[in-house]
């Protein structure tokens, strides 16, 4: 019984949140990795693209709620998500046309594009704050829990409860759907194949008659969809705040690099590696150990490896270790 309790406590505080966070990071990292694979630079504006998409979705959600439209037990934001994606598509395509295209034509060094994306980051950051302000916004509505801790206890008779928030469930389900569609697209459709060809060998792809501008356009649209979805899921699960999204850039980059930049499968794996290490290392294991250890060995402290504020430090330590020992990431990524 104690063993079961320990497992439930561990699932409740580590596995479930880790899964949700990992799925959000994976979606974010997929966007970064696609940009890197096709356009060949690290996009520093990605966090703010996510913030923009989420801000748009929140505005539409508010509009829907004002009209009295809800999505039953599910959050209304899911209904608003497509509009958010379209708005973000327009934003990134506009940015590409106005800003990035010039440097692509020039064949500028990747580092110049990174600096350019820093400028775009500033602008988007300003725009998002202009549109929606800097406050913390919660926009999750509908049912709060799929399984609440109390129900779980009543059902199983265990001392520990296992709570699964609706937003966590939705995050995982949506992420699975999005990833499945993305991989189907990349592997089965003509456009997807031309994207992969372009990413593998640009010159060869151009020689075989692939239109680079079209590949770039499709990439941006996919990235906009991924970024908005990731942002909305994160915002539903926690809350929306412009500055937090900028900071999310760090674990997202870590995920993409740990998995292998330019490799979509790696981005997903990296997302979960980073999420689980962050959650595990900053979780206080006292509760779990109390069930597992005999009474005289019970820990007196919290048995927390590092305080929660070090979660960025965790993702970056992993990043550095991976970079030192396996510079192309866990899955083979590109190295330009």
């Amino acid at each position, binding site marked *: 019984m104690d063993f079961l309790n320990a497992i439930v406590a561990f699932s409740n505080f580590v596995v479930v949140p880790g899964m949700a966070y990992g799925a959000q990071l994976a979606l974010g990292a997929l966007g970064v990795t696609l940009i890197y694979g096709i356009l060949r*630079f*690290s996009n520093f504006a990605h966090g703010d693209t996510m913030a923009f998409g989420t801000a748009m979705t929140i505005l539409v959600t508010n509009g829907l709620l004002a009209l009295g439209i809800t999505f039953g037990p599910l959050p209304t934001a899911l209904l608003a998500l497509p509009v958010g994606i379209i708005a973000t598509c327009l934003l990134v395509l506009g940015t590409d046309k106005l*800003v990035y295209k*010039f440097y692509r034509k020039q064949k500028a060094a*990747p*580092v*110049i594009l*990174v*600096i*350019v994306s*820093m*400028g*775009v*980051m*500033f*602008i*988007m*950051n*300003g*725009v998002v*704050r*202009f549109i929606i*302000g*800097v406050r913390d916004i919660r926009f999750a509505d509908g049912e709060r829990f799929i399984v609440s801790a109390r129900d779980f206890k009543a059902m199983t008779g265990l001392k520990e409860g296992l709570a699964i928030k609706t937003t966590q469930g939705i995050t995982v389900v949506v992420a699975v759907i999005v990833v499945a569609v993305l991989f189907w697209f990349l592997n089965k459709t003509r456009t997807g194949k031309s994207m992969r060809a372009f990413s593998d060998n640009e010159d060869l792809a151009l020689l075989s008659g692939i239109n680079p501008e079209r590949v770039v356009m499709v990439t941006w649209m996919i990235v906009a969809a991924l970024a908005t979805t990731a942002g909305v899921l994160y915002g539903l699960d926690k809350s929306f705040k412009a500055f937090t999204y*900028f900071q999310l850039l*760090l674990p997202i*980059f*870590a995920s993409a*690099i740990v998995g292998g930049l330019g490799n979509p499968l790696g981005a997903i794996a990296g997302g979960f590696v980073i999420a689980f290490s962050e959650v595990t290392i900053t979780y206080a294991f006292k509760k779990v150990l109390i069930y597992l250890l005999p009474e005289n060995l019970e820990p007196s*402290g919290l048995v927390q*490896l590092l*305080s929660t*504020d*070090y979660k*960025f*430090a965790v*993702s*970056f*330590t992993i*990043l*550095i270790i991976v*970079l*030192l020992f396996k*510079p192309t990431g866990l899955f083979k990524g590109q*190295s*330009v």
Partner: protein
Amino acid sequence: MTISFRNVILAAVVASLYIMVGALDWGIFPGSWNTALTMLNFALIGAIMALGVNLQWGFAGLFNIGIMGFVALGGLAAVLISMPTTPGAFTAGGWYVLIGLGLGVATIVGAVKLYGWLPMGRLRTLITLALIVLGFFAFRSVFDIGVDAIEDINPAATGYLGGLNWGGENYKDNGWLTIVAWPVGGMFAAGAAWVIGKTALGLRSDYLAIATLGIAEIIIAIIKNEDWLSRGVKNVNGLPRPVPYEIDLQNDPGFVESAAAWGLDPVNASTLFTKTSYALMFTVVLVILLILAQRALSSPWGRMMRAIRDNEVAAEAMGKHVTARHLQIFILGSAICGIAGAMMTTLDSQLSPTSYQPLRFTFLIWVMVIVGGSGNNFGAVLGGFLIWWLWIMVEPLGVLIAEYTTAGFAEDHWFRIRMEDAAAHFRLFTMGLVLLLVLRFSPRGLMPEK
């Protein structure tokens, strides 16, 4: 460098921007010399940081976006040098902390050595991992005792080790110690840069960027959380100052008299006096660093650096040790940022870790360098002054624009409220726009490298 007409004009324009803040009371200009001097002081510090970044990016092409971390380390140095020692803190837990840290370092060094020494295979990974885990627990078990003991000492006021100032209650008399802290801050940053450079400089340019960005966040996280070191988010206030206090000046009859001779009231004169003193000290540092950087740029060493930047392969073929040179200049540039960080904490008289934001301390400095002209020391300094002026003045400008555009709307119209709220966020937008415009239409900056 020959003084070109264009550069003189540019410098004169930027100088007049600051003078206008002091002299003009119209539109966005407050017409206050006090404000102008405050801006100038921060601009001087910003210019020094830009000089450091220009060393790394302009001379060597190293893409470092961890400037914030080095700046914060400089600030930490200011606290550790100039604050009074907390009585009893070191005897209570100092040794535990030191031994704990020693154990931690020994674990890392041991793990690296062991990894190199053991034969390849799965066993090697397992043994190294086991050593790291064991070492971590040993480190925490010793370290935590010391930390608890130190943080228990009067947590409301101290609860940290304190600095090296022996003055006790009258520690503010030893204000000159903060100046000692500036080079020490540089050394702190240099030490951190050595560790980072050793691990990350072999990486590709954008990996290095992300690694430095992450390490800067780690440094901030440490300063925020290690209360025994610098009180964490509780902030360290009231650092001693190398310049006289306003209140002392106001009580000094000689000063009041000479202020009256200038036609100034004592309060205003005293703030102007302290700010001018700071400005003079910062200018001295800036000029020294600028001369050094300029000498370095035109020396054979500087030519070699630029050769490495322009073509690493060719430089390596000529027998230049590229990684070692990169490490060298990475350390030098970071040290300059550390010095600037210590100066800034001196100017603020406090260390508040939450104020370190990457947008303000890393990316803004990059805008300064790019706009000013990467590769040109004078350009970086000019960019520092110009961009800092813009960073400050854009906010009143935003308010002004909001007022004009919303003049026709009612008090509670959503557009008016939106605009008034948004005026404060105008800054980021403008910085991004300036950066993009310069990169697009004048990629070499205002004062290009020759």
